[in-house]
């Protein structure tokens, strides 16, 4: 997204509105989770390079504001299907960096206990249904969860994410159409990071998919995906519409995938100037700066927060490395469930939901 005068004004307006909803501690949290995502993924990449991560490695570098800003609006009883660029949402909801790292390494202590790898995980006890690889299948699962909320008359929200490339798949259309017909309480976060693997926008669609929301009967809004408060504010409004029975919202977050599709991908297909332009808009640096310039944080305070988070991730990594590999017998267990166990609630650090000190992180 290019910065224009008009969008600058819009940005300012969003920030003002968000201001009403975010406390000082919320703002620290937003930065904290973004840094935690960045630090966790950097640590994972190191583990990958050290040969400790089997298979391949994927991260969401540059997209941290999206999953953090969006997930931050959720209440405990809301539900999520979190995708492969969205570690931040897992962290907000309560997955520790250690369990993430252990999962990447295929350890028993990982979220899936070694059954599944990379970002294909979700913690049932935190209300999260782990993504499948087939994109964007989780959009239908999220719609189905939203359907259950609607049928039971519960003011709850299902939130899911997908890349812009995934909108070309028929599953996406079926999910949007179904959610529109039934005005389901779903929040759909579209991450337009310019590419699907190596495929650029112009080979994915002729018209930006955010335009389509209206033709499914609900609003589509485009926001600066590298501005965590802009994402937060759009998600907050969408979740509140959903809870109020007004149906789904499609939020397109304009961003850029700052690493290759996976660690094996050298991104040779990305124009250098394009990359440089987005590099200057790093969501973490930008927000750290804003905390100081706009919200009265001391530079030292911000630095300390970043240092603390990195130290915490380091600790988590050490514990993850101690986690053993799963036992081979596990391989044939769990194909069938013996009983139904419900999803649990996720953490909800936003001050709006806060009770009894819950929600301070790390």
């Amino acid at each position, binding site marked *: 997204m290019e910065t224009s005068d008009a969008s600058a004004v819009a940005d300012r307006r969003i920030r003002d509105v968000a201001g009403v909803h975010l406390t000082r501690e919320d703002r620290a949290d937003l930065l904290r989770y973004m840094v935690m995502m960045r630090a966790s993924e950097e640590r994972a990449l190191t583990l990958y390079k050290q040969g400790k991560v089997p298979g391949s490695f994927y991260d969401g570098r540059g997209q941290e504001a999206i999953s953090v800003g969006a997930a931050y609006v959720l209440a405990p009883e809301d539900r999520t299907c979190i995708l492969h660029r969205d570690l931040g949402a897992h962290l907000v909801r309560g997955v520790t960096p250690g369990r993430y790292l252990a999962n990447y390494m295929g350890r028993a202590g990982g979220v899936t206990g070694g059954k*599944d790898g990379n970002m294909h995980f979700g913690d049932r006890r935190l209300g999260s249904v782990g993504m499948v690889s087939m994109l964007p299948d989780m959009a239908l699962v999220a719609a*189905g*969860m939203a*359907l259950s909320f609607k049928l039971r008359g519960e003011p709850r929200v299902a939130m899911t994410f997908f890349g812009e490339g995934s909108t070309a798949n028929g599953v996406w259309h079926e999910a949007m159409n*179904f959610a529109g017909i039934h005005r389901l309480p779903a929040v759909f976060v579209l991450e337009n990071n310019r590419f699907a693997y190596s495929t650029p926008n112009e080979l994915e669609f002729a018209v930006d998919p955010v335009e389509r929301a209206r033709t499914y009967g609900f609003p589509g809004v485009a926001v600066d995906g590298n501005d965590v408060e802009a994402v937060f504010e759009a998600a907050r409004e969408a979740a509140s519409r959903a809870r109020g029975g007004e149906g789904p919202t499609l939020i397109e977050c304009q961003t850029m995938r700052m690493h290759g599709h996976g660690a094996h991908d050298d991104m040779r297909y990305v124009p250098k100037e394009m990359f440089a332009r987005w590099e200057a808009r790093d969501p973490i640096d930008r927000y750290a700066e804003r905390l100081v310039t706009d919200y009265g944080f001391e530079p030292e305070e911000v630095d300390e927060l970043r240092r603390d988070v990195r130290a915490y991730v380091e600790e988590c990594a050490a514990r993850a490395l101690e986690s053993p590999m799963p036992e081979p017998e596990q391989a044939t267990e769990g*194909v*069938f469930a013996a009983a139904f166990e419900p999803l649990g609630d996720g953490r909800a650090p936003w001050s709006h939901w806060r009770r009894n000190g819950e929600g301070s992180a790390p």
Partner: protein
Amino acid sequence: MNAITATRTPAQAGEMTYLAAISDALREEMRRDPTVFCLGEDIGAFGGAFKVTDGFVQEFGAERCIDAPLAEGAIIGTAIGAAVAGLKPVCEMQFADFISCGFDQLVNVAAKLHYRQGIAVPIVVRLPSGGGFSGGPFHSQNPEAWFLQAPGLKVVAPATASDAKGLLISAIRDPNPVCYLEHKGLYRHVKGDVPSGEHLVPIGEARIAREGEELTVIAYGSSVRLALLAAEELDEQIEVVDLRTLCPLDREAVLASVRKTGKALVAHEATRSCGVGAELAALIADEAFEDLDAPVRRLTAPDVPIPFSPPLEHAVLPQLEDMKEAIRELLAY
């Protein structure tokens, strides 16, 4: 919920069709458990292409018998979501053939979620399957073998009205995704005594439909009737094993019967290669090898799409004469 159970009118006991038994099971479970709901094309006001949910909207409301848009992926995918969030969706494919349009949701999302993440997916996918009425290549298929190559799905295929009810109730209560194959040829042609009220047939247990000493026919769905008719007409010592569940297979029941008779004919309407019959034959050839007195034979449709025109369809689907011929041949071996 108890209140609902208490006030329900008891279902009629006695004889009913296979089709009525399916409706009955569904109605019973919806009365008993408010989390059960139906999702499918034209199942609401219209009552479904085969009228399984006739009257359901009136009794349960449109919210518990949802007319889905023409999108099988959406039906199965949203059912998965509703299921993990605590409901118990029963999906109807208008014809089993359309499962190929929601295949990915079934084999990749539903089937693997518990193994991968410990999340149970209690959905039932009802699949009106099978041919014999000039439905042509897209309304006659028997897709069960696909599901056996997608670990994580349970698969049932009742042959009688009683099992149609009992297996559907068990499927709805099972915490796993269950593919429920209801053969359209049995809908109105098969009648039988069906216990009223709660009636459960355990998933995973075969049934000896007929006892005999000389040869075992292992069948399911529409082929059970063919096997029983053939056995009767031939008046020989034929044992008929009605599998009822295809996954997990009741291996012990199959092997015990074949060990006793020494001869096995595996029969189904689905096409031959990599069908359920292949799995059964392989099982028998491995684990009952020493007891076999004859080759393991299969009676199936050949590997062709199911044609429309009656003489063509008749040539392709296993007929009573084919069953008798296959039995005779194997008996004479």
